[in-house]
């Protein structure tokens, strides 16, 4: 076996490992009650996204993916946690979430079903597009994390996990994106990174406002607007 082949097989295995951990983190976001841990999980997930982008960038020889990895690390590993800690305030993180819409074992089971469903959707696309080995790992896992993020938003009642759920959805979309769209125009990549920052800023500020006005951040329990 020659050297590039060895490197290639090493890269694919490492990428598969990254993908597996990426998926595991998405499961963690569904279930873990400690809010500060949720934020750390999100940061870890973003780091995995950047690592996968680096590996794919090396494989495809694409400068775009290196830029994506750099932007991801700057925006999601450094700026977003800082932003969220500044805006939301420490006391909101110190809390544990008491009530969830569905209890944890049940929601993990549903999360498992979602993952299988994601593979089920991704498969025909991979076959139709004659996708490479990286897309075969990244597309279904990214799709699973996208839907798991949506699921997180619906079962969580606190503002911070809901916010992280939406950011995790974007992470999932990009995890698939780095494999299937490695040459997206750089300007669009820059704008997307900027966009994620604004999402975090706006939602963080809104959480702070809600905390100030209502004295709590359990947004799932707000019912002032329910119609009788």
């Amino acid at each position: 076996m020659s050297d590039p082949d060895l490197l290639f097989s090493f890269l694919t295995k490492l990428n598969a490992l990254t993908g597996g951990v990426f998926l595991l983190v998405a499961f963690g976001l569904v279930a873990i009650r400690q809010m500060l841990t949720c934020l750390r999980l999100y940061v870890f997930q973003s780091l995995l996204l950047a690592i996968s982008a680096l590996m794919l960038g090396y494989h495809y020889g694409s400068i775009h993916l290196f830029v994506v990895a750099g932007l991801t690390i700057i925006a999601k590993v450094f700026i977003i946690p800082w932003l969220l800690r500044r805006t939301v305030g420490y006391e909101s993180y110190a809390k544990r979430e008491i009530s969830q819409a569905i209890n944890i074992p049940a929601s993990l089971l549903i999360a498992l079903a979602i993952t299988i469903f994601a593979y089920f959707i991704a498969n025909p696309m991979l076959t139709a597009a004659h996708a490479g080995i990286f897309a075969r790992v990244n597309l279904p896992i990214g799709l699973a994390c996208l839907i798991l993020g949506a699921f997180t938003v619906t079962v969580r009642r606190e503002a911070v996990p809901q916010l992280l759920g939406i950011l995790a959805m974007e992470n999932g979309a990009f995890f698939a994106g780095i494999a299937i769209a490695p040459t997206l125009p750089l300007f669009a990549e820059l704008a997307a990174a900027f966009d994620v920052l604004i999402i975090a800023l706006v939602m963080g500020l809104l959480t702070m406002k809600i905390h100030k006005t209502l004295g709590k951040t359990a947004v799932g329990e707000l019912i002032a607007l329910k119609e009788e």
Partner: protein
Amino acid sequence: MELLFILLITAVAAALSLIPLGKRFAPLVTLVASLAVFFLSIQAALATLRGGEVVAIQDWLACDSLAALILLLAAFVGLTAAIFSWGYINAIVEPGDVRKIRRYYSRFNLFLLSLLAIPIFANVAMVWIAVELTTLFAVFLVSFESTPQALEAAWKFIVLTGMGAALALFGVLLLYWGLRLGHPGAFTWTGLLAAAPKMPAALRNTAFLFILIGFGTKVGLVPMHTWIPEAYSQAPSPICTLLSGIETSAVLYCILRLLPLFPRAAVSRAGMWFIIFGLISTGVAAFLMLKTKDYKRLFAYSTIEHMGIIMVGAGLGSFAAHLGAMLQIVAHAITKSLCFFAAGATLMATGTRNIPAIRGLIRISPLAGIFLMIGGLAIAGAPPFVVFLGEFSILKAGFVHGHYLVIGLLTLFIGVAFFSIMYQINQMVFGSPDIILIDEQSLFGRSTLPGRNILPPTCIIALIITCIPVIVCGVYLPDQLYQLLHNAAAVLGGYR
């Protein structure tokens, strides 16, 4: 070059609005800017009539007829909303709170900028970013009054549409993948169209569904509609006109853009999804309107209903139905602006959003009463108005091609919606004058006595300006506008 100027002017206005130069400066800047943008977009629309496509920067900023139509509507609604804001925002912020006025106008301009960017951007990834930005810039406009209800509405708004945007992002990336598979062109709407025949069907269909559901949350398709009544009831009225009149149609425009990507045989399947979502939205909204007790919510449900009608029109697939859908987009944008301005005027005159609390509005505030009645009649689809024309052309187009079941159901739902709207509006407008304040404090710190609250002149001007096309276009469409609608419908590629 018009397109670049439109974006630049709005961006500059957003920055200038923050300069502290008295309380008249920010509204004046916004007004001048939106007027300039309106004339520039008329110019751009006329240019598409002559040359087909206006290009400012190849592959990045360009406008064809369909985009020009949305651009023109956005500029028109933006202009009237800027006029209406002048009086309305002065009335709802506490006197002397100039900072809040400045912040409002700055966000208003940014929101308008993102709305104008949707049709102007040619790159699909950039269009997605513009759609996402409409949400982010609108959030603090929805929560502008900072009441617990407004904050709750804003949270629901950003969470639901944020989820939708992430789903749509996945769809956009899939489209890019499909584009790259057989075609080296740029990631624009035209590039996609050129690559469509080589795109694998599985990819195209999955991308379509993700974008339909993702952007469908912003359009307000049932069952992703739950944020709409909440955000519309809490946002200031001029923001409601932008959200309802333009934002929904502009995002729907992105979904409509996918229709020509399907080959003739598959277009009916995509059309089927349009029709299913459209009929469900129209039906659910029509019945919810009967129950609601808040007139801004009433118009919010009516927005969902009209989006449903447009979806059905687009899904029917014939050129005539597409033309009807285009006309309906125009009709909805101008008529719903009138409705929300009238709702804002009613709110200023009575201080409550509660339908059962208001009786005899026509005597409490004759202007608000008359415009609310005209707006209600027009949006419900009464004959001389432009909405009737749009609905009728969709129904007729469907009937000619033998979609009897779809047209039958649509007619039924439109009938229910007509009854619901007229029932609710009649209840408010006629009868002996009376305001029963049940739970809401008197808004704006103004008199709750009937007849005391006079509308600010700018609000009246905005009402009159929007009222003119609502009435005129029902009986007479200018040639250029008709030609633009015709070209825009042709972009969707329906069969003749």
